């Protein structure tokens, strides 16, 4: 059998698009060795397992939620549906889940799979946790106390209609019987100076300051006046953002002892726990059905 014919025959089977019964006679002939037929299933199982693994780790809470709301078969069907719509394309396994939040939103609109209404937002939230955790390093971030004020390269702001942070942090792992409350917020994702993943609900002032830093607007009293806050409150919050690693660069000399005593973002931001952080990093590997990933 020529390679092109082999791949045309076995390819759809490995990708979950044709059945074992269709594939075996096309590949081995009508009198196929039963042992060959049986062992061929191993490869189909491995390939399907890798598709599942590509989403299981990055979207661990989505998976737990779907299983809790229905069953594991529903989750597996959703994953297969995803890869039919958005085929694998990247050598880094987890990267292939990029469009999963979109697929979930589409399936919610079609009211298929019996998905909970917040699942698309949860998928988006988990994707951005992973994106932030793995984002490429920036030399500029390493010079945290030098140069003009600038926003850390890992910072991402995402709007959500559900209070996912409170919900995720209040539940025990796996206990997702409750639902997140409807509460619109903007979540700030970033990596701190120890490279830990963090996320918190961003305040209006946080966002104004980030905008000012992006536009190189000086932290002057005029800015505070424009924002309707005291200059010391502006500087305290700016210092909190700097300490948290959200903003880098030389802070203006006007920061006073009073502003330095503020607790800062560390008190209300969440450092993602190690199990979560490691769960989002599924290694891809592939010797015989396992991912070589660590």
């Amino acid at each position, binding site marked *: 059998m020529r*390679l092109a014919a082999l791949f*045309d025959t076995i390819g759809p089977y490995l990708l979950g698009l044709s059945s074992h019964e269709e594939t075996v006679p096309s590949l081995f002939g009508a009198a196929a060795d039963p042992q060959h037929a049986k062992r061929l299933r191993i490869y189909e199982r491995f390939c399907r397992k890798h598709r599942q693994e590509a989403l299981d780790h990055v979207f661990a809470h989505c998976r737990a939620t779907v299983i809790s709301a229905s069953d594991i078969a529903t989750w597996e069907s959703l994953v297969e549906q995803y890869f039919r719509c958005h085929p*694998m394309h990247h050598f*880094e396994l987890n*990267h292939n889940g990029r469009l999963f939040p979109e697929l979930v939103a589409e399936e919610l609109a079609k009211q298929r799979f019996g998905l909970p209404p917040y699942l698309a937002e949860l998928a988006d939230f988990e994707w951005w946790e992973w994106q932030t955790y793995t*984002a490429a390093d920036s030399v500029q971030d390493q010079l945290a106390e030098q140069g003009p004020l600038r926003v850390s390269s890992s910072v991402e702001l995402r709007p959500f209609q559900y209070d996912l942070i409170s919900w995720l942090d209040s539940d025990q792992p796996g206990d997702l019987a409750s639902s997140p409350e409807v509460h619109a917020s903007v979540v700030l994702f970033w990596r701190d100076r120890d*490279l830990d993943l963090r996320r918190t609900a961003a305040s209006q002032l946080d966002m104004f300051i980030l905008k000012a830093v992006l536009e190189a607007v000086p932290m002057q009293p005029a800015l505070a006046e424009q924002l309707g806050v005291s200059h010391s409150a502006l500087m305290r919050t700016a210092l909190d953002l700097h300490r948290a690693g959200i903003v880098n660069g030389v802070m203006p000399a006007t920061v006073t002892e009073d502003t330095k005593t503020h607790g800062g973002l560390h008190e209300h931001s969440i450092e993602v726990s190690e199990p979560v952080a490691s769960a989002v990093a599924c290694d891809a*590997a*592939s010797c015989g059905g396992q991912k070589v990933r*660590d």
Partner: protein
Amino acid sequence: MARLISGIGVGLRRPFAAELLKTKRHLDFLEVTPENWVMYGGQRRSLLSACMDRFPTVSHSVSLSVGGLEPLDTALMDSVATLCEQTDAPFWSDHICYSSVLGQPTHDLLPLPFTHEAVHHVARRAAQAQSHVGRPLLLENATYCVPMPGAELDEAGFLCAILGAVDCGLLLDVNNVYVNSRNHGYDPFLFIDRLPLDRVGQLHLAGHTLVDDVIIDTHIGPIIEPVWALYQHTIRRAGRLIPSLIEWDQEIPALDVVLDELERARSVADAALMNHPSHRSRSMEHRKVER
């Protein structure tokens, strides 16, 4: 001149990477699967950099799909090239298989038919990949649970034909030879004897798993006695310590358990080379110089 890779090493795995940086036990080199590391910044990148600073490191990718029909993945090869540059590695490696089909990565190592067409296809693409990365490529023999139809060669003949058609080295996975010999009923020692061991740049050792009537190359250790015997045979026949690597990819134990396997490999290799003619003559030459 590239950094030397010699002795016995381990595959870098995330669960014990941090511990590796603290161990006082000796290992000679690391092997990194770029797919699992190079796309990451943050803590994982920091860990990789620290490991690469401490140990000689080689790249061992799993996604080249040298036997596939899709164009070779330029982004992957660029990543491998960057990793090779950062580590100053003397070679890099991937598998004789396909891992993409109909334009989609499968993230598995899938068997090719042992045909002349596949030999020339693999040889042409291996040369292309080697040229793109700019460093010598070692091709690894893979396992196969079921032979693909239309074989014109046996497995050893297939490997030899590829090595005859392209200027690449062989990464000989000793465990894979054992697994295939059991699954397909041949003598693994005679198989090794048919290979051009002077072309072998690295060896792999690993555990595996018996599932029903078939052995799966799971890289779950420990390495079993028949594989150690085959390793000893390979080293003795080669007459040199080919750089050897312990792979442990699932159910990963504490680092010390993996390093125990590494020490076992060292002692098996030493035993294989003890009284070997090539080593005896080297010892005599050494004594002569001393006088």
